[in-house]
């Protein structure tokens, strides 16, 4: 991580009819940082992420350096394309050979060699999310946005995917902005946790656990201390 700011948000507000899920929010994120946004359902976490990606209208100012990648929880892949088609979809302006080489490289990185010709319905939930990450990484974005990608997985798969994500992130060192409502997931993954409540960030918590992080961390006292701190801010 370095101090170069890659995402800067000033006075961001989002309005849906009469409701305002995000109100006058300020936010900054440095290059290579892993930031996790936590909040209860309807707290505006996903709206914030969607505004960053430019998917929804907003008031205020958002500056993002470089290209964005996005990983969704549902409909994460195009079901009518094979794994190869999905990963290669965003690789534009490259030759067919180069495209194939890049897809193979990404498949190796997500440990799914031999799956190129499979369709999403032939994959498990965890495999779908691995391919979704590869698809988002393919065009080499500077910033990766992830909206509760593992929330639909069972407990064990989710923990495995979190460790796997950290191992991928360690090599790529992309800036990640990750949304979740699961506090253990947030603490295990994050450099920094932002607590969103009533449309505003109520806390900015630095998570100083050494990396690489082991599964034992989840059972440590310090881990529980961070969880208590977040719970206090969630109200």
């Amino acid at each position, binding site marked *: 991580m370095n101090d170069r700011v890659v995402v800067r948000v000033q006075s961001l507000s989002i309005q849906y009819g009469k409701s305002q899920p995000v109100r006058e929010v300020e936010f900054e994120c440095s290059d290579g940082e892993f930031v996790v946004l936590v909040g209860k359902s309807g707290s505006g976490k996903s709206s914030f992420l*969607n505004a960053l*990606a430019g*998917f929804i209208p907003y008031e205020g100012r958002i500056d993002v350096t470089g290209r*964005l*990648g*996005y990983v*969704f929880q*549902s*409909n*994460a*892949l*195009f*079901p*009518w*394309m094979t794994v190869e088609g999905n990963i290669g*979809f*965003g690789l*534009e302006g490259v030759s067919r050979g180069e495209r194939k080489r890049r897809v193979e490289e990404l498949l190796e990185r997500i440990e799914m060699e031999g799956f190129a010709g499979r*369709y*999403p*319905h*032939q994959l498990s*939930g965890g495999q*779908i999310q691995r391919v979704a990450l590869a*698809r988002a990484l393919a*065009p080499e974005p500077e910033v990766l946005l992830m909206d509760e990608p593992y929330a639909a997985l069972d407990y064990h798969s989710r923990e495995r995917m979190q460790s796997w994500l950290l191992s991928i992130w360690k090599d790529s060192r992309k800036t990640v902005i990750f949304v979740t409502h699961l506090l253990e997931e947030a603490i295990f993954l994050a450099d920094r946790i932002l607590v969103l409540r009533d449309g505003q960030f109520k806390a900015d918590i630095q998570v100083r656990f050494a990396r690489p992080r082991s599964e034992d961390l989840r059972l440590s006292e310090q881990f529980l201390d961070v969880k208590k701190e977040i719970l206090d801010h969630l109200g």
Partner: protein
Amino acid sequence: MGALRLVSEQTEDGKSSLSLGRVCARVAPILLLVVAWEGVSRFGTVNSALFPPPSRVAVAFLDWWNSSELWRDFRASYGRMLLGFLGGGITGVGIGMLTGRSRLANAVLSPIVQALRPLPPVAIIPLVIVWFGIGDEAKIFSTAFAVFFPVWINTHLGASQIPVEYLWSARLLSASRVKVALTVLIPAALSPIIAGLRTGIAVAFVMVYVNELAGASAGIGYQISISLLAFRVDRMIAALALLAAAGASADLLFALFVRVSFPWLGGRAR
């Protein structure tokens, strides 16, 4: 997908199985019906002139076959059905995608389509005959007109209900609107489009048949119409059987085409 189960059954692991026992179980009730029909008609329970036995219908079918008129009639009806289906299908998908995805197109075109939709398509046949004459053009036009509506409504609904994640992913990953339209929008709306096209096939056969009754010099409907004048009930039933076989074959061919071309439709979209 229900549409594909006509071709074969899907087992839990997604593979097809069409066992001999299952085929027999499906054919047996039909054979039983044919045998009962033969008995009832042959032994005078009903008037065999009005209700000829299947053996006589089979002879009428062979006569029709040997006269070379059968192929002429089959080709004429199938050709009209196919051209009308393609005309209505392509227009329905095109306009449905436009009205489903573009607010402007929806505001301009949907009121016109909705105003025409309640019209029973067979009711336009006399008007179309006045416009195009008694030839194939009129039959193909009115068939295309009838096919258009179920295809349009299904495509419109499918295109307007594409999950937002597909659209957002496409927007981030590709700069080409043409690529997104062809490789994301149409496939994302494909399930309802296929349902609409399948209804369109059935509608096309109805329209071809009614058109041929209204005036034709060849076709299965024409054959039924002249058999009525000659009081050849056996030939009428043979023609009806061919009409049913033509409809079923078109439906099965379409289901097979879908299965081969879009293997991912057999799975659950995630």
